[in-house]
């Protein structure tokens, strides 16, 4: 692959170099002769008009008749008057009469066609000029550029029809797989930030409310990307809810119930009023494209809520997911590692301190940040930083609740969220009056039905799902029948597959910049991301599915 890159660079340098140098090679395509004698001396060696450029007439001059067709290159006779005669066909030199014979077009000083002549006297000519045909490699370049176009179109068609090959995703989970092959309906997305075994972690996602009977639940598990998923554990937390009541997942790991949502009276962003998009969790998201000069540019959203009469603890609930910024950066990081990706992954895995360039604690992740929440402390007249929301993954919407601190809010609750512009999509922002933490019921993953094991692989008790894997995972627990809020906890990691086409893009300095100078990197990469941002977002909403991505992998 390194040789391929080398050839690419050399080829480009050659092409670019040719743009400067090759003109010099053609400088002899045109020759001038001060008089007919000089032209006559060159006469036998003149290249033919119809033959290949390098073909020459080696006929000895002594054998030439005094007047004969030459089959010579294009001849121009520049007259002393400034006019020019152009001999488009055969011509010959008549030494006896000192004429150039042949039909010639006559052009005036202004190069307008005046007519034609059959001969011209040598004495009237100031300078003769011959031109040989110019070779060109246009057919080769047209062909190679057409191949490039064909490859571009083919890749476009693949991305149109099997988008996830171009997007990727983490393990996806579906409560109701009633819209097959549409990733938009994914209810949860597991451990998106676990890029290698040592990064495995537990990720809890809100699934929704379902009416359970007998403590049974079925969940569809899919691998819809070119990744290897290693699922080390799955369980579901179930919180029964009554009518008008919602169960909330706290960022502190607790679960809460709430019967009251505070009215959102004001929601403003740089583009204006955001209430239409953020009042309900309805799939209508608030999103603002990235800053074309810096992916880390921050924006601030401000909210106001009417306060309740009761003194119940409050929690800020946000339904959110990431845009494709992080996915883009992850793919870039893998591309920068080139063919060394697997080795570096193994090296990082065995190192004492694994460095994840996208980690939220350092590097790019830290520079991009999460959804930083502040509340207005009326007593001290200042904004009080509370905490941040952060969950990796652009597919499933996360709904989490951040318990608010016990500060004096004033006559209204004022909250502001600061985040990297274009990195997040918000579906809902709400404040709930919270109950005391509740203990959920647990639903445990059951063994798969007989026969399923034959097509699924395991590793030390973990489920290893290759691209295209799709099965129904049953859960069972002791839960009262009725409406129940469900929260999926998945533990594991995944290995992103590098693509054949990525291997030639190794760039350690860029990777180093990403890790050690993330702010600068995010500025420099912003235009590149901007050029594809709109298409990525649009296409995501038109998701289609492929049934067997393994086949696709061979095409990449």
């Amino acid at each position: 692959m390194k040789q391929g890159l080398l050839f690419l660079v050399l080829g480009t340098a050659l092409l670019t170099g040719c743009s400067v140098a090759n003109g010099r090679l053609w400088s002899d395509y045109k020759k001038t002769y001060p008089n007919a004698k000089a032209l006559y001396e060159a006469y036998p060696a003149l290249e033919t008009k119809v033959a290949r450029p390098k073909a020459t007439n080696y006929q000895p001059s002594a054998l030439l008749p005094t007047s004969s067709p030459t089959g010579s290159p294009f001849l121009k006779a520049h007259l002393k008057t400034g006019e020019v005669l152009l001999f488009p066909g055969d011509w010959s030199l008549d030494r006896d009469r000192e004429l150039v014979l042949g039909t010639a077009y006559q052009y005036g000083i202004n190069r307008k066609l005046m007519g034609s002549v059959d001969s011209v006297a040598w004495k009237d000519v100031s300078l003769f000029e011959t031109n040989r045909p110019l070779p060109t490699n246009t057919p080769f370049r047209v062909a190679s550029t057409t191949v490039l176009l064909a490859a571009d179109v083919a890749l476009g068609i693949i991305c149109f029809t099997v988008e996830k090959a171009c997007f990727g995703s983490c393990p996806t989970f579906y409560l109701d797989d009633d819209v097959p092959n549409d990733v938009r309906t994914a209810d949860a997305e597991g451990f998106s930030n676990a890029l290698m075994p040592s990064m495995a972690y537990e990720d809890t996602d809100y699934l929704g409310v379902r009416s359970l009977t007998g403590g049974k639940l079925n969940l569809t598990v899919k691998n819809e990307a070119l990744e290897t998923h290693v699922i080390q554990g799955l369980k579901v937390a179930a919180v029964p809810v009554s009518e008008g009541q919602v169960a909330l997942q706290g960022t502190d790991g607790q679960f809460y119930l709430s019967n009251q949502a505070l009215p959102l009276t004001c929601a403003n962003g740089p583009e204006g009023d955001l209430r239409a998009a953020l009042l309900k969790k309805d799939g209508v998201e608030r999103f603002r494209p990235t800053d074309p000069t810096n992916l880390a540019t921050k924006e601030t959203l401000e909210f106001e809520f009417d306060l309740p009469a009761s003194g119940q603890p409050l929690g800020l609930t946000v339904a959110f997911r990431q845009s494709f910024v992080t996915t883009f950066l992850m793919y870039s990081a893998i591309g920068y590692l080139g063919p060394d990706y697997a080795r570096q992954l193994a090296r990082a895995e065995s190192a004492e301190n694994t460095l994840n360039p996208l980690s939220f604690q350092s590097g790019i992740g830290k520079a991009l940040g999460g959804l930083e929440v502040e509340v207005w402390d009326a007593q001290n007249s200042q904004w009080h930083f509370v905490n941040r929301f952060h969950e990796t993954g652009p597919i499933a919407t996360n709904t989490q609740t951040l318990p608010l601190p016990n500060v004096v809010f004033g006559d209204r609750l004022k909250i502001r969220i600061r985040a990297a512009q274009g990195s997040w999509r918000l579906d809902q922002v709400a404040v709930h009056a919270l109950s005391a933490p509740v203990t959920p019921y647990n639903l445990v993953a059951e063994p798969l039905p007989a026969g399923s094991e034959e097509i699924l692989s395991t590793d030390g008790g973990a489920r290893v799902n290759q691209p295209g894997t799709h099965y129904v995972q049953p859960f069972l627990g002791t839960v009262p029948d009725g409406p129940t809020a469900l929260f999926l906890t998945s533990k594991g990691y995944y290995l992103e597959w590098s693509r054949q086409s990525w291997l030639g893009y190794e760039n350690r300095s860029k990777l180093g910049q990403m890790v050690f100078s993330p702010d600068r990197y995010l500025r420099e990469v912003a235009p590149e991301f901007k050029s594809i941002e709109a298409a990525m977002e649009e296409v995501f909403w038109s998701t289609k599915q492929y049934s067997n991505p393994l086949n696709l992998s061979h095409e990449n």
Partner: protein
Amino acid sequence: MKINFHPHWVGFFPAFFGITFLALLGGCVPSREAMAYKELPLHNRVQSSAYGALAIVEAISYEKTIGELIAIDAERVYILQGNAALAVAGQPRTLKRIKRSEIAQMDLIFARNPDGIQAIATLSYITLPSHLLYAFLTVPFNLLWIKSTTAYDRGAFRLKNISAEEAKKFARFPQGLPAGMAFEELKKAL
């Protein structure tokens, strides 16, 4: 492979065609040199052209001069700007004289390649937004390839930093200005 477009693609098309339009629009804002380049004869027809080559002259105390090389004598280079053969929109038709001693650099372009590659390149650009995340690889590659190809085209028949003596034969009047014709008279006659 079955191609089954999802109805949501309808929402993608405006953005897609918007980008296409911008790409085409971008291609419609050429430099003076590029405008004149398009008027040059094709490489397989230049032998029959009675005009001079396209000269790009940078000289002390002159702005860059682009036009048809008319003639070169012992002291000066004569360049016709705004003529029919190598027209640059908005440029007045003038015969410019530049002292040879003041010329810093002179380039000549005497022919051009066909436009087919540009058309293919434009189509390639149009497909790039559909590459989604792969675009971070395909955009630089396409730019590299197509820019190289364009550079090759522009440079294929370019004689860079050519001396006045070498350049003479590429002029409309390689023998020098028509004898006995005053400058003003020539200006009108061209």
